[in-house]
């Protein structure tokens, strides 16, 4: 088993390194002039040249790449784990990502937890229940929710629950901008308020996260239900289930056997969904003004902040690859055929 994991780690590493190279050159291929960032009352030609030096863009591309990877006297490169400094704020990209990533993770993990715990039972019920209505209903919902734009439902929810009914908070972010957030340990307000033992903050952060999580979960439950329903119904028609039925195995045994067989494809879906959710986060964060990684990547892109853009793509893709790795290992644990 460890040999499988080591090999899989090697593959993941190669992918991340090639990713870093691809990102660096992809951005520089695009026809955009980032030096424009330095604008001020006196942005004369000399100041423009000065800014170019400060950004290091006067050097040839290949040398920029060397600095990007290995760093030079002042700045350290990727090897030292630094993603360079953001051109807008001047502080390291990692600092910004550290500030914004927890917010996105908090939103995603919470929505993921809720949608998985809701969707799996519904999906299994959809596949196993005898009456057609439940079966058809879960299929239709799975298809419908799986293909919905988060931003249109987000606005509908804000209007309905906040403006009209007033049962939900306004789209003000993870917590009311006026309350003192708990001192950041994990960066996630829900977790930090637990650590800090502040029940009022915990309640408030959950209260403010209700609408964004509802929107993301609504969109997530769709594909999960559809996938679970398909896998379970497929695995119920597998040979060993039908044989088990013919030789009188109990309903409970058959159900657990088919679920075990249906787990593997469900795990792969979770991997795919993860990168799908990161994209969705950009939209939800901009709607509910959550200062997450999605918002930071949007600002960096609009402000043509190359180091920040590179940093964001590398962090997100590595996270995605990490999730794929964990899921592959989990699958191999479950299914001996993969351990060959």
């Amino acid at each position, binding site marked *: 088993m460890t040999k499988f994991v080591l090999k899989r780690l090697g593959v993941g590493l190669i992918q991340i390194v090639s990713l870093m190279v691809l990102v660096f050159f992809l951005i520089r291929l695009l026809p955009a*002039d980032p*030096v*424009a*960032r*330095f*604008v*001020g*009352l*006196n*942005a*004369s*030609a*000399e*100041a*423009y*040249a*000065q*800014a170019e030096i*400060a950004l290091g863009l006067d050097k040839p591309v290949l040398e920029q790449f060397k600095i990007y990877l290995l760093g030079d006297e*002042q700045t350290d490169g990727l090897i030292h784990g630094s993603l360079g400094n953001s*051109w*807008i*704020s*001047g*502080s390291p990209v990692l600092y*910004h990502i550290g*500030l*914004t990533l927890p917010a996105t993770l908090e939103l995603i993990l919470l929505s993921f937890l809720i949608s998985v715990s809701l969707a799996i039972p519904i999906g299994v019920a959809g596949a196993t229940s005898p009456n057609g209505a439940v079966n058809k209903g879960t299929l239709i919902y799975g298809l419908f929710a799986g293909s919905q734009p988060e931003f249109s439902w987000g606005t509908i929810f804000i209007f309905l629950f906040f403006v009209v009914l007033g049962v939900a908070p*306004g*789209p*003000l*972010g993870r917590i*009311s*901008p*006026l*309350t*003192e957030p708990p001192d950041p340990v994990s960066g996630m307000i829900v977790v930090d308020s*637990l*650590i800090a*033992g*502040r*029940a*009022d*903050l*915990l*309640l*408030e952060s959950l209260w403010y996260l209700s609408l964004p999580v509802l929107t993301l979960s609504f969109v997530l439950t769709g594909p999960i239900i559809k996938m679970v329903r398909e896998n379970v119904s497929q695995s119920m028609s597998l040979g060993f289930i039908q044989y088990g039925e013919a030789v009188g195995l109990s309903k409970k045994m058959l159900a657990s056997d088919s679920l075990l067989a249906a787990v593997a494809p469900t795990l792969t879906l979770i991997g795919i969904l993860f990168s799908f959710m990161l994209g969705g986060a950009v939209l939800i964060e901009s709607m509910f*003004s959550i*200062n997450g990684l999605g918002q930071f990547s949007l600002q960096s892109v*609009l*402000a*043509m902040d190359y180091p920040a853009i590179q940093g964001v793509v590398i962090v997100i893709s590595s996270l995605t690859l990490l999730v794929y790795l964990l899921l592959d290992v989990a699958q191999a644990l479950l299914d001996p055929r993969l351990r060959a």
Partner: protein
Amino acid sequence: MKIIPAESPAPPGTQALSARAWSALLLAFLLSGCHAPEQSADTDSAVIYLVEDVPAGLNYDGPAASLHTSQVGIVNLMDPLLEYAASPEVENGVQTSDFSSFEGSLAENWVYDPAEQSWRIDLRKGVYSCAGNELTADDVLYTFARAKSVSGAAPVGWFLASVASVASFDTSVFDNPAKRRLGDEISKLGRYSVKVFQSAPNPLFPHILTSFALRVFDSQEMRKHATESDPWSHQYVDEQTSPGFGPYCTERWIKGDEFVLTANPYREERAPSIKRIVFKRVPLSSNRFVIMKMGEADLSDRLTPREFEALAGLDNLKVIGLTGNETLFLHMNFKSPPFDNPLIRRAVSAAVPYDWIINNGYRAQAKQWLSVVPTRYPGVSENFQPPPGGLEAARQLLSQAGYPNGKGLEEFQENFQLSYVAEKQIALGPIANAIRAKLREVGIPVELNPIPLTQFGDRTLVKRDLPFALSDQEKPVVVDAGYAIQLFFASPSAGGVNNMTNYHNDSVDALWASARTTANPSARAEFIARALDQIAADIAWLPLAEFKTQWATHTELYGFRWYPDNSIRFSDLYRKEH
């Protein structure tokens, strides 16, 4: 109370028991959270200020200097040498300034010696920084030396000094590093007085001292944070705070989230009435509107006209503001045909729907702008009048220019891309749509092209290649028509700086040159007035509207005063119960 129980996992027998204990603990914990969050002790005097963004940097020579959201931090942390004198007039709840006379802020008195072309400045005594260091001449010298070192990413200090013709603050600093050290142009006369020499009799010197840049640093504190690779502590000012001799100090600053100022403990006289200000970053104006409507914040700005309108109606809120120097204009680049043809420029100015912009774009919270410099500035008259007759006049002008009904203008399709700042889509979007619709009606093939703020700034101020733009970005910080002319209309050869429309008119250059060199104020005013008339006639800019600089605030807050950088000095404010 600690949430995670300290004892080791209970043996199986008591498993059931600990489960119940757990749930009881959790319940108690949640209930304790339900009481209303107690107010923090000193909110009675603390002001909660909702802003578009908290300062991205506090270094007026740094990358974020041009952002309005950073300037508000700088002006409250650092006091200038001089300030404009307050004028008794209060317009719609906001006090204005008498821009022709000054009052001392850090300076006690200041004397101009025309023979030497020098300014002797005596500093106020007993003024202490947040670090407890007393203000001395060394701090002023340090401030000018730092500006001259042009070591920052955007050397604004150097620029303003060069505009005010401070001796040897010229472009040579860029070509020759040796020129970057402070010479004898600023000399220390005594512990509390300095003398600054000018290379020409330039009246702008006192004006630039009031701006957000060239504010005096606490040199001792700055030197503590200097490093071998960053002698002028740019990193420290970009990241931590900007030590000066202002009324407030930085209590906490988390970029992109929160910025808290508290009153400077070492400041006895002129101590501010508001002790603590909490800047809260709420990027979307609709969210700021929601929080103000719920009454959970005291002050907010930069809302859309409809949001101000809606807030004005609420009982514990008031909307105050006046038309300061925020203007909207159409910029047509002389170097991008067909805008070099005056007939086209006049056709465009005839077709633009001014009334729609004022009534629907700004919901009457603005007035038509009939000059090329904010009319509030001294010596500025309403000398611009769009050709009467609206669309019909525009069509005639177009056919006179040889493009009946716009036929033949397709060739310039690329130049008819109307650009504007994408981040201001909510406010400028409708106006751009209206202009596009009306111009297309007469045959001018306009398309919209929102671009990010950075790209907009670069193409207007650096490359100057933006053919057609709708801009509300240009607010001349120095309240002087001459400064505005140098900034926007003088051609580069005549010392012009931005001139984004590549406007070139020899008579304007000549008038500006003589205005700059004359020592006689009335002659200077005469030259400037004639220059403004010529600029308006050439439609260097097509002025559209002067919109109000407004704030939505709690009814108990008073003392608001307008400054050219549109930032609030919280030391002006005070609370008054009803």
